[in-house]
């Protein structure tokens, strides 16, 4: 995952920085980390899909002496923890670039990654519950990843999008996660972007838990 992040940041973002400006590099840098968080978070859904269709482990897991709701919540928590671990070095690198590595604001950076991952883990679990084949899972995953990456403010301002598309960009969790990171970098308050990010993240996590409970019916 760190190698993935490294290629995104030190190859793609650095080259766009040279093509445009160093400020642009700093602007898109947190996107590399959030894209890594997205990939790591989606791995949770893929694992659940594999447990059911490839490894045939779902029935065994559901015999464990754990209530279904606790099990669903633990899957989400595990996914978020995994995503935080996978992005740990990346978050440190971005924090270094933004000059907050040794500041208490580092906690805010991890909070943003955790909140963002929470929503994506929920989404990936919801997809895994309904995808009957790996092709469907991969297709929905790549459509969501396209939406999160390119219809957000990672690379450009929301004003550059046609008016019709702007509401889609505004409701994208990636937009608010990246805005929160930029606020940290500008020494501004993250309260507004984080308070908006909480909405879709909790909604997606809840959706993931409901879908997992539905999927776990025997």
């Amino acid at each position, binding site marked *: 995952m760190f190698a993935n992040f490294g290629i995104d940041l030190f190859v793609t973002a650095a*080259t766009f920085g*040279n*093509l*445009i400006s160093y400020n642009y590099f700093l602007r898109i840098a947190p996107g590399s980390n959030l894209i890594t968080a997205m990939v790591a978070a989606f791995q949770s859904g893929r694992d659940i899909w*594999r447990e059911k269709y490839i490894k045939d482990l779902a029935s065994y897991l559901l015999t464990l002496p754990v209530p279904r709701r606790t099990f669903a919540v633990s899957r989400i928590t595990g996914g978020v923890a995994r995503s935080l671990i996978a992005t740990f070095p990346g978050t440190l690198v971005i924090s270094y670039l933004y000059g907050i590595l040794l500041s208490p604001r580092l906690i805010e950076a991890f909070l943003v990654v955790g909140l963002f991952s929470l929503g994506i883990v929920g989404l990936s679990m919801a997809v895994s519950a309904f995808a009957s084949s790996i092709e469907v899972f*991969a297709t929905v995953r*790549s459509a969501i990843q396209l939406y999160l990456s390119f219809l957000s403010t990672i690379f450009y301002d929301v004003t*550059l999008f046609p008016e019709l598309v702007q509401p889609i960009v505004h409701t994208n969790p990636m937009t608010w996660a990246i805005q929160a990171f930029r606020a940290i970098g500008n020494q501004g308050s993250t309260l507004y972007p984080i308070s908006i990010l909480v909405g879709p993240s909790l909604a997606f996590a809840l959706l993931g838990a409901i879908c997992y409970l539905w999927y776990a019916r025997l």
Partner: protein
Amino acid sequence: MSFSTTQVKDSNSLPGGDSTSRLVLQMARRDISTLFRTPWIIISRSLAFIVQLFVFAYLISGFVVKFPNYFEYYAVGSVVGTIASISFIIGYDIFEEAEEGLLDYLLTLPISRRQFIIGRALGGAVRAMIYTIPMFVIVALMEKFSNPLSLSFAIFDLFLLAFGVTGLSITMAVSVRSANRFDVTLALLELAVSRASTALYPLAFMPSYVAAFAPYSPVTFAADSMRDVLEGTSLNFLSIAGLLAFVTIFVGVGATFYFRRLEGGVYA
């Protein structure tokens, strides 16, 4: 993706009883036919191409003032990047077949191992071409590339890249045993080969540590050769030679690895 049951005709005939090319083509046809049974993959890749070109490249080219006509540059490169990405899929197919036990069935077919392997590499490459040609047509129409000879050479470049990447992907699929490690390795390789290349941005703007390696990426060979031939500059013999070397090495290595693994019973 992998539970394909396309019948190999004349299955009663002994290995060697059919012409080599016919058996190779039958194996290739099997991989090509999976394309039409998995429309989801076509949809997702096409969507990715459209969004990258008409949203990302269109918007970002407005910022790129140091390099004129960046959108046109990106458009050709995005086709090259897409075919490289799609050619990697054959590795996932082979890995899943092994994991699900389908490979055992395939090995009982009356076809020699060598024909089996070459057929798979060829099928993977042709499949990638079928995916990518409509995207190439869109770019050719947008950029008004109309010289038939240039277009033919560009398609040849794409095919060479697809064939070589297919070999590379097969090599990885038979070299890595763990599913998670395989997923990560292939995704990382795909990312490295495409991003550290001149497909999406010019060499002059890459950081020095990337610019040192990028000229040797097969994606760079294909992208440079395609741009030269489509823009009417000349045939880029150096890049074509690089592509041919890449194909020879990786289809050869892939075939050898695959052959050894199959005969060694690793998948049993």
